[in-house]
């Protein structure tokens, strides 16, 4: 049944006002008719009532029908208005229609027409109302839907932000810290993440809470009451079951069940947990830990409806934690591996100070394949190598070790530093996709005071001369493993005493993005470090260049300083007893090494001096105590060693009828024996050749 329709009839003709409502009521059901004798009265009623239709005479005193129509259009445009016009008033009729009248009724009123028109107006009005209602309903529905969408969008945005935050860090503790901070305070007042090993032992925890005091309490709880000792704790349970648990209200009874002693209960009560949700962190079928969300008693408690969002967060977190754990492991292995392949100690080389520094890249990146190396060849020359395998992680570290070993092994038989690079290139090229590697290999001949090097696309070393100038030596060649490989050139530079040579990997200059500026900064630092005569120059250079900033790449620095070589000396005064013998031989051996005599020459020199010393010990002081001296004297072309005693013997009496003397003469260039009142002096002279002469020119004695 349709509801009652209300219509307003306006006419200054009292007769009509009486007759028409009667006629309407007779022909239409459920209609209420109000009447008004003037437009002014009609407007009053219109202000109060939302009519379904208005019928008005067009000609009225005061405001007429057209005027009223205009007001109705203003006030309630949705109300259909019918106008009653006189016969032949076409002009007025037209104006009425133009003014927005629904229809017009001509006098004398055809009642049937009037009723049909009125009915149509009422129906139209009702239809409009219905449409409006539906529109409003739709709008309400739409805005409700919008709310739902908005809420879900907020969740998704939160989760997507969470995912982004979680992958931002690959370091495990960093990931955990991010995770706990994500949920607080948006979803919870506090958040705890516990990671457990296969045996359920918690090994790492991150705690966050809006209230620092509570945060400290939570941390203290975890420290004092390890979870593996509390089998009834929901975290321990979730670890076992892999199922989440929701505590809509955490009662004191519940806490009493969890507590293992009074103090434990007291601490838990102090946290004032209102509600709690614990969710296992499960990724790749492994439950690595549990995330707990807590809300204080003063905040609306968690309900199961909170679970989907938090579970979604936990799923993402579990993946991030798992990645961080894997990464953590690989990073540790790679770093251990790489450090194991750096030389544990730098070789001791007379006249050369070596210093090295290696720093792995910042935590958040992976370890790289940088290395430095220094070792001595059997002939005493020093070999240094520095390089950088492209790529990161364990694979780069392994490749680095191969390249380094190839360089080492080859260098023992190489005649030039280009050869080990050639071999390293071939070793790398055995792989289907060779890892590009830059490297520099150099040979330092401290006797000839030269540095001979070859480079495979590696940054040229920096050379600081004692005169104050600092220069970058040219970088040469093409990276090892490159399809464009060609045999590298070899360069030689003079290293006068006091020179400093710095070999480095590009992490040291690339952190600045502007390599040219980076190299200039490095040269400035090298200059300063050399001037200040810093103890550990490699570390100092690295520290100063980076100046505490981030360095994503790993960095290796090797510093070679050529010192003023002290002239080999031997100056001994010893008691003439057999126990003194070995000290002399040791001293002569060291002298031979510093003169870079080969093993044959060294043996000969030792025996020659040894024969003389043996003789002194045995014969110079027969039955008496005495001492003797051994002095080495160098000239440009020979080494002479004097063995002098203050004894009284007059005849050179070597063992076995002069065998010792024969041996001495055969081994040394010449032997002179000079006896005077003070004692006997025996002088052995050994010619020096080439490099040895150069080596000792500076010193003399």
């Amino acid at each position, binding site marked *: 049944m349709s509801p009652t329709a209300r219509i307003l009839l306006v006419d200054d003709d009292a007769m009509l006002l009486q007759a028409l409502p009667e006629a309407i009521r007779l022909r239409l059901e459920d209609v209420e008719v109000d009447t008004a004798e003037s437009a002014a009265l009609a407007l009053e009623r219109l202000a109060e009532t939302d009519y379904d239709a208005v019928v008005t005479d067009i000609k009225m005193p005061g405001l007429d029908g057209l005027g009223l129509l205009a007001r109705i259009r203003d006030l309630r445009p949705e109300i259909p208005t019918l106008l009653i016009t006189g016969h032949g008033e076409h002009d007025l009729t037209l104006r009425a229609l133009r003014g927005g009248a629904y229809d017009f009724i001509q006098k004398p009123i055809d009642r049937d027409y009037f009723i049909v028109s009125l009915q149509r107006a009422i129906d139209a009005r009702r239809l409009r109302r219905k449409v409006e209602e539906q529109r409003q309903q739709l709008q309400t529905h739409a805005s409700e839907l919008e709310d739902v969408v908005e809420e879900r969008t907020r969740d998704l945005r939160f989760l997507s932000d969470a995912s982004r935050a979680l992958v931002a860090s690959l370091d495990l503790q960093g990931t955990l810290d991010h995770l706990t901070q994500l949920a607080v305070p948006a979803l919870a007042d506090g958040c705890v993440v516990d990671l457990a090993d296969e045996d359920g032992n918690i090994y790492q925890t991150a705690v966050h809470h809006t209230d620092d005091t509570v945060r400290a309490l939570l941390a203290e709880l975890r420290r004092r009451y390890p979870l593996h000792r509390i089998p009834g704790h929901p975290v321990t349970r979730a670890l076992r079951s892999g199922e989440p648990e929701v505590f809509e209200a955490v009662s004191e009874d519940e806490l009493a069940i969890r507590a293992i002693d009074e103090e434990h209960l007291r601490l838990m009560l102090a946290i004032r947990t209102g509600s709690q949700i614990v969710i296992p962190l499960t990724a790749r079928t492994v439950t690595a830990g549990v995330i707990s969300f807590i809300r204080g008693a003063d905040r609306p408690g968690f309900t199961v409806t909170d679970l989907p969002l938090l579970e979604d967060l936990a799923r993402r977190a579990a993946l991030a934690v798992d990645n961080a754990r894997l990464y953590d492991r690989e990073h540790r292995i790679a770093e251990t591996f790489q450090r194991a392949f750096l030389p544990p100690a730098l070789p001791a080389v007379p006249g050369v100070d070596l210093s090295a520094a290696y720093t792995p890249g910042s935590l958040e990146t992976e370890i790289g394949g940088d290395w430095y190396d220094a070792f001595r060849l059997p002939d005493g020359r020093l070999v240094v190598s520095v390089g950088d395998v492209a790529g990161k992680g364990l694979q780069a570290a392994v490749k680095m070790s191969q390249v380094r070993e190839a360089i080492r092994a080859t260098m023992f038989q190489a005649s030039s530093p280009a050869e080990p690079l050639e071999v390293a290139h071939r070793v790398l090229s055995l792989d289907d996709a060779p890892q590009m590697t830059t490297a520099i290999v150099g040979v330092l001949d401290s006797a000839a005071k030269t540095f001979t090097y070859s480079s495979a696309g590696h940054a040229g070393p920096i050379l600081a001369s004692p005169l104050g100038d600092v220069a970058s030596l040219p970088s040469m060649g093409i990276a090892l493993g490159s399809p464009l490989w060609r045999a590298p050139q070899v360069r030689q530079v003079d290293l006068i005493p006091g020179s400093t040579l710095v070999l480095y990997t590009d992490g040291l200059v690339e952190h600045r993005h502007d390599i040219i500026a980076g190299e200039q900064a490095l040269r400035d630092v090298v200059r300063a470090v050399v001037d200040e005569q810093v103890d550990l120059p490699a570390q100092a250079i690295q520290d100063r260049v980076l100046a505490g900033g981030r360095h994503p790449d790993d960095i290796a620095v090797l510093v070679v300083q050529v010192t003023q070589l002290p002239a080999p000396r031997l100056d001994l005064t010893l008691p003439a007893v*057999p*126990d003194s*013998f*070995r*000290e002399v*031989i*040791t001293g002569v*051996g060291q002298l031979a090494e510093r003169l870079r005599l080969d*093993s*044959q020459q060294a*043996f*000969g020199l*030792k*025996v020659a001096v*040894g*024969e003389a*010393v*043996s003789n002194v*010990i*045995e014969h110079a002081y027969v039955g008496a105590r005495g001492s003797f001296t051994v002095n080495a004297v160098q000239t440009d072309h020979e080494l002479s060693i004097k063995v002098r005693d203050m004894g009284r013997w007059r005849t050179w009496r*070597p*063992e*076995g009828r002069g*065998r*010792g003397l*024969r*041996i001495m003469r*055969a*081994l040394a260039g010449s032997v002179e024996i000079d006896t005077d009142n003070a004692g006997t002096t025996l002088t052995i002279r050994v010619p020096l050749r080439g490099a040895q002469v150069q080596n000792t020119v500076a010193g003399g004695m």
Partner: protein
Amino acid sequence: MSEAGTFTLRFDRTLPVMEIMGEVDIANAQEFETALDRAVNSGPALVVSLEDTSYFDSKGIHVLLLFAGRLARSGQHLALVAKDGSAPRRLLEIAGVPGVVPTYGSIDEAMTAIAGVANGQISLPQSG
């Protein structure tokens, strides 16, 4: 400090082989002599290797020659091993040792030669 000599003794097919590692000098010549005396057994020869000797002079040579003489009197031989061209070999040559005590380039060479002597195929020079 340089290392005092150590004298290691092993047996190669029952023949004693003594290796001098490190130095033999005035300070341990006596010890060297004692070690040689102890190394001898009833076999036909004693092999003494100077391959790993870092110092050896007329003191050691004196001990070796006296010892070779004692062995000869009991019908045994001393055989020395010093690699050709090595510093100890050169020293032995300077002192004229290979002329009186058979000297070989390797232990294997010495063992082969001694086996030959035992079979009567060759004879060794005798030290005076």
